[in-house]
C-alpha cells in the first residue's frame, strides 16, 4: 500500500431516502475535490450486491487504498462494506463511513440545502479520518481445550460433565475430601421429594467414569495468571502444589448455610433446630411425637445486615412441613413467614399442597418478629399476626429456623485470584445481570450455582449447563480472534504511574517487568478510557487515534 492516500468515496441515494432530501450528485462532485480523494461515485443502493461490486471494482481500477461510504449507519452496515473491501484485498480498517441518512437526510427532511451542506461536511470529516487510517490486524490467540471447574457440588459436577461431553479435558477442583457438596447434608429435595443422593450419586459416578475429567479432591486453587485461553493456575492439594494450564475457568464453589446462633434462642432453648437439621431428623424418623411444630422464615435474612432473600427457604419449609404431616397427619405445623417466596409452577404447587395438607401459614411483620421463650414442656412462640390483628401464643414441641444461604468465606480470596468482582452481599458478580448472567467481565471465567446467589438445585443445574456452554464456546473454536480496536502503550512515554491500570474495567492492563503499562489486547475491549486519561498521553486507541479524531473534528469546522 503506497502511503499516499487514495480515497474512494461512495455516496448512496438509498432510493430516495437520501437522494430525496439532499443533493447526492452535488455531494459526489464536492467529494471529488477533496484532498486525497482519488475517486467518487453515487449509487442507488451501495449496500446492494451490485453496489458492493462497484466498490470492489473501483478499488482495483483506481488503486484506492482507503474507502469511504456515505450512506446509513455503521452500526448496521459497516461490516458489510468492510467485507467488500477485504474481498478487494483492502484491510477492513482502511474503511470509514459517513452517516448521511439516519443522522442527516432523515432528520433534515425539509432543509435540502442545509442537509446537503451537512452531508458534504460529514463526508469531508470521514475522508479526513480515512486519510490517517492505518491497517490493523486482528491477532488470534490459541485457546487451551482444557476447562477448570472449581467446586464439586451439583453445579460443578454438572458443568464438568457437560464440558467433558462437549469433548474437553476438565480439571474438577474440590475443597473437601468427597464430591457432592452441600447436597451430601440434605435428604429430600423439593419440588419432587427426590433423595439428594439419587441426584448426586449418578453425577458423581459419571464424573468418576469420564476419562476427560481429572478430579482434584481436598484441593484449592492457589494461583491464577494469564488470560482466556491460557490461564496458568496452581492447584494445591495438601502439601503439594501442581501447575495446571487451562483455557477457561468455571466458578461453582457454592454457598454456605448461616448458623442461626443467637437467633430465637437457637443453641440455648431445647427443641430449636434449623431446616437443615430437621431434614436429617425426618430422614431418621427422629421427629417422633413432636405434635406442634413452628417454622420461622427469614431468620437472619432480609435484614439490615443481610438484606437479600435466600430464595429457597419458603419452598424448603413447605416441603418439610408437608413431609411432617405425611408422617403424622395429627401434627400441627405452623409456618411463620414474611412474604411467601414460593413462585412459578412447581414451587407454587408446593405451597398449595402444603395448605391442602393443613399447614398453617401465619404472616408476621419484620418490625414485629416472633419471640421464642422456654416453656415447661418446650419452646413457646409468641407471634403477632397482623391478619388476625392479635398476638398468638403457640406451645411448640419443636421450632424450626429457616436460615439463609450465605456466601462462602473464601469467595474473597478466589475473587482476587481470578480478578472478578463480588457483589455487596459477598456473592460473585456476573458481567451483566440480564444478558450475561453466567459470564464474568473477565473473559474466560464463568459462574454458576449458589456461588452466584442462593437458588434451587434445578436452577443451579440449568446454570451449570449454561456455564459449560459459555466456557465451551472459545474452547470449541480453539482460536480466538481478538479485536483490533484496542489500546497500545508507547513505552517511551509511559511513566508507569498505573492510572490506566486503575481505570481499566477489564484488567486488560498490567505492569511489565520494567514497571511500565502493557496491554493484553486479547482482553482489551477498546473503550479508550485509558488513552483519554493517561497523564503522559502514552496510550493511543487503534482506529480512534487522537490524530484521527482531531482531523475529523477540524474538518467539520473548516475546509482543509
Amino acid at each position: 500500500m503506497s502511503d499516499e492516500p487514495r480515497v474512494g468515496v461512495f455516496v448512496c441515494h438509498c432510493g430516495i431516502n437520501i437522494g430525496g432530501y439532499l443533493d447526492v450528485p452535488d455531494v459526489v462532485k464536492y467529494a471529488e475535490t477533496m484532498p486525497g480523494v482519488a475517486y467518487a461515485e453515487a449509487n442507488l443502493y451501495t449496500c446492494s450486491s451490485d453496489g458492493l461490486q462497484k466498490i470492489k471494482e473501483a478499488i482495483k481500477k483506481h488503486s484506492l487504498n482507503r474507502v469511504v461510504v456515505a450512506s446509513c449507519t455503521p452500526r448496521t452496515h459497516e461490516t458489510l462494506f468492510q467485507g467488500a473491501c477485504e474481498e478487494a484485498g483492502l484491510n477492513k480498517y482502511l474503511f470509514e463511513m459517513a452517516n448521511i441518512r439516519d443522522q442527516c437526510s432523515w432528520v433534515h427532511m425539509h432543509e435540502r440545502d442545509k442537509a446537503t451542506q451537512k452531508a458534504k461536511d460529514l463526508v469531508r470529516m470521514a475522508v479526513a479520518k480515512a486519510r490517517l487510517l492505518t491497517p490493523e490486524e486482528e491477532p488470534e490467540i490459541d485457546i487451551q481445550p482444557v476447562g477448570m471447574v472449581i467446586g464439586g457440588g451439583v453445579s460443578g459436577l454438572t458443568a464438568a460433565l457437560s464440558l467433558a461431553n462437549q469433548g474437553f479435558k476438565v480439571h474438577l477442583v474440590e475443597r473437601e475430601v468427597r464430591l457432592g457438596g452441600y447436597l451430601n447434608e440434605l435428604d429430600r429435595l423439593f419440588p419432587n421429594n427426590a433423595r439428594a443422593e439419587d441426584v448426586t450419586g449418578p453425577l458423581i459416578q459419571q464424573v468418576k467414569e469420564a476419562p476427560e475429567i481429572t478430579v482434584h479432591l481436598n484441593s484449592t486453587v492457589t494461583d491464577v495468571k494469564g488470560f482466556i485461553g491460557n490461564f496458568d493456575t496452581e492447584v494445591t492439594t495438601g502439601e503439594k502444589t501442581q501447575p495446571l494450564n487451562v483455557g477457561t475457568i468455571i466458578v461453582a464453589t457454592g454457598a454456605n448455610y448461616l448458623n442461626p446462633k443467637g437467633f430465637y434462642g437457637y443453641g440455648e432453648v431445647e427443641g430449636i433446630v434449623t431446616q437443615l437439621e430437621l431434614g436429617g431428623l425426618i430422614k431418621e424418623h427422629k421427629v417422633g411425637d413432636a405434635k406442634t411444630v413452628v417454622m420461622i422464615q427469614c431468620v437472619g435474612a432480609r435484614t439490615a445486615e443481610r438484606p437479600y432473600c435466600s430464595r429457597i427457604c419458603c419452598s424448603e419449609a413447605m416441603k418439610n412441613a408437608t413431609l411432617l404431616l405425611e408422617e403424622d397427619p395429627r401434627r400441627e405445623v405452623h409456618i411463620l413467614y414474611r412474604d411467601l417466596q414460593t413462585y412459578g409452577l412447581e414451587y407454587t404447587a408446593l405451597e398449595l399442597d402444603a395448605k391442602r395438607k393443613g399447614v398453617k401459614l401465619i404472616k408476621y411483620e419484620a418490625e414485629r418478629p416472633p419471640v421464642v421463650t422456654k416453656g415447661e414442656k418446650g419452646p413457646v412462640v409468641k407471634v403477632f399476626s397482623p391478619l388476625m390483628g392479635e398476638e398468638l401464643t403457640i406451645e411448640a414441641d419443636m421450632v424450626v429456623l429457616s436460615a439463609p444461604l450465605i456466601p462462602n468465606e473464601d469467595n474473597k480470596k478466589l475473587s482476587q485470584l481470578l480478578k472478578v468482582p463480588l457483589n455487596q452481599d459477598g456473592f460473585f458478580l456476573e458481567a451483566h445481570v440480564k444478558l450475561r448472567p453466567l459470564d464474568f467481565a473477565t473473559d474466560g471465567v464463568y459462574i454458576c450455582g449458589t456461588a452466584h446467589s442462593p437458588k434451587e438445585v434445578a436452577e443451579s443445574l440449568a446454570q451449570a449447563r449454561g456455564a459449560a456452554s459459555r466456557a465451551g464456546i472459545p474452547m470449541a473454536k480453539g482460536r480466538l480472534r481478538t479485536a483490533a480496536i484496542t489500546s497500545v502503550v508507547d513505552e517511551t512515554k509511559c511513566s508507569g504511574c498505573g492510572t490506566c491500570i486503575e481505570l481499566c474495567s477489564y484488567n486488560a492492563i498490567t505492569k511489565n517487568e520494567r514497571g511500565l503499562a502493557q496491554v493484553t489486547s486479547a482482553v482489551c475491549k477498546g473503550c479508550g478510557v485509558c488513552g483519554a486519561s493517561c497523564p503522559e498521553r502514552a496510550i493511543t486507541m487503534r482506529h480512534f487515534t487522537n490524530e484521527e479524531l482531531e482531523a475529523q473534528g477540524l474538518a467539520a469546522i473548516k475546509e482543509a
Partner: protein
Amino acid sequence: MSDFEPKIIGFLCNWCSYAGADLTGVSRIQYPTNLRVIRVMCSGRVDPPLPLSFLAEGADGVMITGCHIGDCHYIDGNLYAKRKFGLLERLVEKAGLERGRVMLEWVSASEGQKFADVVTGFIEMIREMGPTPAATDPEIRLNLRVAQEAAEAYRLRAIVGKEEKLEKKGNVYGDKLSQEELEKIMDDAVELEYTRNKIKLLLKEPMSVKELAKKLGIDSKVVLEHIVVLRQRGWVDLHEVRDHSPLYKTMEVA
C-alpha cells in the same frame, strides 16, 4: 444574529447515544442541521484536549453524549467521561468562554426524541450566546490553546485519572475524598496549570517577569513562583539579562 449558524461538534458513544441518534432518524424526528458527529466507542474516550482544540479553531460548541450512568457498555466508562468533562468545563471557563459552550448529556439507544431535544436545545443555547469569540479574538484563541496544553500536561490528567478512585476507594492511606474536596483540588490545580501553561506559551517570546505579570494581570511575585516551577520542569529557562532584569524563554524541546 438570526443568520448565525453555529458550528457544533458532537462526540457520540457508539452503543447508546449514536444508536439513539439513529433512532431519531428512523423515527423521522427533525432537528436543526448544525451538528457534526464524531463517533467514539465510549464517551470516556473523549480526551479534553480534543474539544479544546475544536473550540480554538472556531467551533461554537461541543457536545458529548454517552450511555446513562449504569448503562455503560464498558461498565463505567461514562463515569470517567463525567470526570473529564469537569476538567473541560473549568478550562473552557478559564479560557474566557462560556461554560455552556460544552455540554455532557446521557442519551440511551431508545431515546430518539430526547436526542433531538438535546441537540435542538444545545443549538438554541449556542445561538443565544452568539458566535464563538475565538473566531475573532486572537487572545481567546491563544487562551484555548493554553487550556489545551494544560489538558495535555501531566498534572491535571493525573488528578482526573485518579478522581474516581479517590472518591470511591480512597488514596494509598485509604482515606476517601468527598466530592467537595475533589472539586476544590481540581479548581486549584486548574488555576495553577492554566497560568503556568499560559506563561509557557507567552515565553515563546523572551519576556521579563514584570512584562509577564502585566500580560497575565497577576502579581509578579506569583509569576516568579511559577517561573521557578517551570524551570524545575525544564519548560522555561533564562534567556538573557537585559538591563538588570532577566528575560525568560520557553525551551525549544520542552
